[in-house]
């Protein structure tokens, strides 16, 4: 049992790292910002963290703090020009950001070591560290979600016209969302660098962007369980399907489709919704009974 647990430690770690990325994606989507910038923020966090330790020999916690701060700062910086964009235009502008960061990491060889990436980063963050990080971020997400900010996010996402008519500042909340997204992804990137010995540019490209988006949509975009559930599913699924050998990807794709088709609002949100509906149905029938009685 213990050995089973041990041998899957890297998988748990990966799931936790993905959960952080998913939260970074979740927070913007929840606010109605269609940003795909998570991969870019994570790349920045990862490189900052790696360089702080390998080039400057500073302790890793400085790297983590810096990665969060720089992630948040980049988030804030892009939030300003992107405030004018909406929907797919926002998505594509942030996709461009991801590609630009990717190009920088590939081409600025002096600092980033190009395609070879940065290797021999000492492993300073393990399962426990990641667990703590995920716990903290989850707490923040839950707090924000049930607060005035979360409510404002929900209104903005559904209908901006209504939001402004209620006095909700779209610019301010989009800004908050971008900063949070940048900070969380920065943290995720840093932890990844300290957990996986090496980083390479291509990890933070289009593939990451797609998979992270898929995690949140598959898990659910509204409740905070969504990103957690989505990240765990998409991390563990490829491992569970090893038995299918070369048809593994086919089965993975089919499962992905089946789950989104049967749970179109995402696994967590659909289940929570179904549970709520059942309660309402019970309540209503109880009410009807009292009326007729």
């Amino acid at each position, binding site marked *: 049992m213990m050995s089973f647990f041990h041998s899957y430690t890297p998988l748990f770690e990966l799931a936790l790292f993905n959960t952080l990325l998913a939260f970074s994606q979740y927070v913007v989507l929840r606010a109605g910002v269609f940003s795909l910038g998570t991969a870019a923020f994570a790349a920045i966090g990862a490189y900052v963290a790696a360089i702080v330790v390998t080039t400057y020999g500073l302790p890793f916690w400085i790297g983590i703090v810096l990665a969060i701060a720089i992630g948040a700062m980049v988030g804030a910086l892009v939030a300003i020009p992107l405030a004018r964009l909406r929907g797919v235009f926002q998505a594509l502008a942030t996709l461009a950001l991801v590609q630009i960061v990717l190009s920088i990491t590939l081409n600025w060889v002096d600092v980033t070591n190009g395609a070879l990436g940065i290797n021999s980063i000492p492993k300073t963050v393990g399962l426990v560290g990641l667990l703590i990080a995920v716990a903290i971020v989850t*707490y*923040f997400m*839950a*707090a*924000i979600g*049930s*607060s*005035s*900010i979360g*409510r*404002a996010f*929900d*209104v903005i996402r*559904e*209908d901006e*016209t*209504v939001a*402004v*008519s*209620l*006095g*909700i*500042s*779209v610019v301010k909340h989009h800004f*908050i969302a971008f900063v949070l997204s940048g900070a969380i992804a920065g943290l995720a990137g840093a932890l990844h660098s300290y957990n996986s010995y090496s980083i390479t540019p291509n990890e933070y490209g289009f593939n990451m962007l797609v998979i992270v988006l898929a995690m949140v949509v598959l898990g659910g975009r*509204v409740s905070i369980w969504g990103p957690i559930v989505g990240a765990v599913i998409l991390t563990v699924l490829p491992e569970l399907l090893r038995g299918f050998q070369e048809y593994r990807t086919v089965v993975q794709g089919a499962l992905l489709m089946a789950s989104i088709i049967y749970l179109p*609002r995402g696994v967590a949100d659909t289940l929570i*919704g179904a549970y*709520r509906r059942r*309660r*309402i149905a019970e*309540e*209503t029938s109880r*009410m009807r009974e009292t009326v007729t009685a």
Partner: protein
Amino acid sequence: MKALVLEDLARNFGGLPAVDGIRLEAPAGRITGLIGPNGAGKTTVVNMITGLLKVTRGRIKFGDDDVTEADATQLARIGIARTFQNIRLISDATVLENVVAGFHRHETTGTFANLFGLPSAQRERRALEDKAMILLEQFGMTGLARHPAGGLSYGHQRRIEMMRALAMDPALLLLDEPVAGMNDSEAHSLADIFRNVARRGVAILLIEHNMRFVMSLCDHIYVLASGRLIAEGTPDAVGRDPRVIEAYLGA
């Protein structure tokens, strides 16, 4: 207590003057009617007052302030609330959540407390839900509090619009066809609510095609046709005005 004053307000769409220089006053504590044929420009007026549309010409005053250039968020924050003619709700959210959203401008907890989930933020949330439940009770919708708004009938969705606007505890309330889709007795049960709101000193501007509702509720009525004011006065006077009968009421 503030009054709304429109001076020579105008708005063009392309070449079309949808609103063409109107003057209007909605005093505090009163229900002022704005009626007119379809396409007269009533909704356009509301959209300009709430900052969703830029004005082409003229001024909008609210109390002593000129708010012509203010943006929608600011206007909402100084207490201008509205309902939408084409219902706009968060369909996935519950009725309660939709109403709670209306309290936004009264939320006092700071960003910091919200980010860190401090107890003050939690307390505020509960307090708002309690206040929302009081509104629901007034509108006879307590039983639907936890229903997703999107699954409700047209009439019930209209009521959520109104509750959300009232949750803003506005100084000026703009109602764009609030009782459309309700029968007379349903409309009547809402009339009292608006009378009470007005009594508290709120200025109400009411747009509605249900004449029985308008006539029984308004103190003063403006009539708009093709973007221009064609009549104004007490309900009785307006109802007898031959121009209004011709353009709007019909024989």
